[in-house]
């Protein structure tokens, strides 16, 4: 159970990337989680679903570019720490590239 702060940061970064990658038009509207569908209650209780949708939208807005940059930095850093062979580094590069492509 050897958790380090580094693994926490890495896990947090990947989770935030996963949330930021959820596309508004292609995916969220299809399952009824688009932000245009959240105009409902005007009382003082927004409800959990509306809060979640707002959270996803704000994460996406804030972390769009930052995620890609941070992922590049982290994979480069990990490469340096691992000192593994060439095909492994190519795999990591491809992994990050894939994650970055999802942002389009």
């Amino acid at each position, binding site marked *: *159970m*050897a*958790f*380090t*702060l580094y*693994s*926490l940061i890495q896990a947090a970064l990947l989770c935030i990337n996963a949330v930021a990658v959820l596309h508004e038009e292609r995916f969220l509207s299809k399952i009824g989680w688009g932000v245009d569908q959240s105009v409902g209650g005007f009382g003082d*209780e*927004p409800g*959990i679903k509306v*809060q*979640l949708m707002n*959270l996803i939208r704000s994460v996406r807005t804030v972390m769009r570019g930052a995620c890609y940059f941070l992922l590049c930095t982290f994979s480069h850093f990990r490469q340096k720490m691992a000192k593994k062979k060439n095909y492994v580094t190519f795999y990591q590069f491809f992994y990050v590239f894939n994650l970055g492509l999802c942002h389009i």
Partner: protein
Amino acid sequence: MRLRNSSMDGSDGSQLFDDTSATGRGQAGPQAAGGLPGQSLLADPMSNLAMAYGSSLASQGREMVDKNLDRFIPISKLKYYFAVDTVYVGKKLGILVFPYMHENWEVSYQQDIPVAPRFDVNAPDLYIPTMGFITYILVAGLALGTQNRFSPELLGVQASSALVWLIMEVLAVLLSLYLITVNTDLTTIDLLAFSGYKYVGMILGVVAGLLFGKLAYYLSLLWCCAAIFVFMIRTLRLKLLSEAAAEGKLVRGARNQLRMYLTMSIAAAQPVFMYWLTYHLIR
């Protein structure tokens, strides 16, 4: 959100801490010392000027460092949480281990600012969690040593993994507070303090296990888990639930139900963490 000691600054810092600085004595010092050997030094106007300039430069530098540091780490807010004294720590540890006799759980306020911990037993502080965390790491090292599994890197591993669990717990609580839109004056540091109170129970369990064996570990851990559960529920009830529900009346409605569930799950997570972080120390 009520800001803690937003109006407290250095001039009335004696409200938080006893002013034991030697400002009175310090002024008498240089005069007495300068009288005898430094007479010739002080008489020289150039060195006088240099001394005055140097001291003003030093105080300017310190002000700048304080101001910049205060932007990143809110030091003035942190000071509030460390304003404790021995009586408070003793009473708080007693409540953490035996919360069943304590009756009044409300935090008292003084003109809209929460009172410092040394004047109110119910106020959260950061001294006990910090000391508890450090003691937990030391006791973990001790426990691993008695099983011949110790190495110095393991201390760092224990420390970082306990810290990671703490951070994840605080983040999870913050996320759920955001999702349920609770209007509360619980700050992040408050949540950190409440999550850190479980280290006391963990230490007691591990020490009992080291001294008296596995059965004592399980018994004391059970006692401390129940105590922390009751403590958390009674403390969080006043902060998270609405006024009516906190007094014990049954208030219907989905919102209050959600808040009750949140309180219950925060309190139930504490025993889980306590067991999770200590079971591998007692074999």
